[in-house]
């Protein structure tokens, strides 16, 4: 199995403390890796590093055998999608939000809207397409954010505790969509503090504590 990510001596420091301190980590391609850790373990920061949103203070990250640098991070960010714990929706309609990532890639407005509509159908929100995104509930907002991620057809999906504070209905829909995404042979990296969540889907589990890897389990 090839590695989607290879991290070597990656450190991310904030002020004087190391938030992330990883000697070596390999995340396999076309598999589901779960990052397990308590609150404050550094899961969100690790996912931000993997999403090329922040750069490490030291060390190297390779994505698909290419070293991530400031110069090429945008190209990688466009191949990776990230679903945050608390999604940010922009002012405008649900459809405009779902189409945003496509429009940022220069896709024509009509095509982007059509693709976004398909994405909203996947998460069961096509009926709310014209509604203001800021009026949605937490679960609906998370589903719109997921549709926004998936419409770009990413090769890797990073999920930062996507089920936190969601109602059961939203959890089920998101769970189904993510499983379908994983079944298509895409790379999935999933962070959670819930030890019960997704044990059957995880191919690998990385246990994080205080920014360090304390255990790795093959699924």
């Amino acid at each position: 199995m090839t590695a989607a990510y290879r991290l070597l001596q990656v450190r991310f420091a904030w002020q004087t403390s190391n938030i992330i301190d990883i000697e070596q980590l390999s995340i396999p391609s076309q598999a589901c890796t779960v990052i397990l850790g308590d609150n404050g373990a550094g899961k969100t920061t690790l996912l931000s590093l993997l999403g090329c949103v922040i750069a490490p203070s030291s060390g190297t990250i390779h994505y698909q055998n290419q070293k991530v640098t400031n110069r090429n991070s945008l190209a990688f960010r466009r191949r990776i999608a990230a679903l945050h714990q608390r999604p940010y929706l922009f002012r405008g309609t649900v459809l405009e939000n779902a189409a945003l990532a496509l429009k940022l890639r220069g896709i024509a407005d009509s095509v982007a809207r059509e693709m976004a509509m398909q994405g909203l159908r996947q998460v069961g929100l096509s009926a709310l397409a014209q509604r203001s995104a800021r009026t949605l509930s937490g679960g609906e907002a998370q589903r719109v954010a997921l549709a926004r991620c998936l419409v770009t057809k990413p090769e890797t999906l990073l999920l930062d505790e996507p089920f936190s504070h969601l109602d059961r209905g939203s959890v089920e829909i998101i769970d189904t969509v993510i499983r379908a995404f994983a079944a298509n042979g895409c790379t999935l990296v999933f962070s959670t503090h819930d030890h019960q969540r997704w044990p059957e889907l995880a191919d690998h589990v990385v246990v994080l504590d205080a920014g360090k890897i304390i255990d790795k389990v093959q699924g």
Partner: protein
Amino acid sequence: MIAAWHLLASFDMDVWFIIWTSLKITITAIVISSVVAIPCAVWLSLQSFKGKRLLHNSLNALMAVPTVMIGLILYGLLSRQGPLGALGLLYTPTAIILGQIVLVMPILLSVTLSTVASADRQLIPTLKSLGATTSQQICLILKELNLLIVAGIVLAFSRAIGEVGAAMMLGGNIAGLTRTMTTAIALETGKGEFERGLALGMMLLLLAFVLNGLLQWLQGAQS
């Protein structure tokens, strides 16, 4: 007071020309400063570098520089013996515009930096992970925070329109050319033409109230 009202209501040419000159100069300075400072501040917000906090603190300190000090420095640069003397800008509206640009630039930079820093913590990571280029990030941040950024512009406008020290030193208070509301108030009151000064003062006060109301509304609307 009645005489002052009469001057405004009867559209006294001199009084209204001074008001027009003030607005023209300040609007020009604000437009130039905003176009430069606001995207620059958003770009700075997107960068992480050592000394960012120091830069922000320095900008805050520059906001407190007295306007006469700005006038003095620019006077030295623009006067005939100064390094920019050959441009012949001293005692022209352009000199006052330059003074106001120097005055409001730190305000716009600092307010925009604070506005972006206080925005939702997920805004910038979301933009980055959606694959936005730096210019797309700047445009979307401006779109998301537009009302607060306009509030910063209103604040800068109120500071510039009420400024007197630099306008007096750099413009020279020349009638029909560089006489602004604030410099005219100082002159007219000194001459004993109290009602003319009061008319201009009332207009300045009215502007301050309107701008303050607009500022409150914008801040309320954004939140």
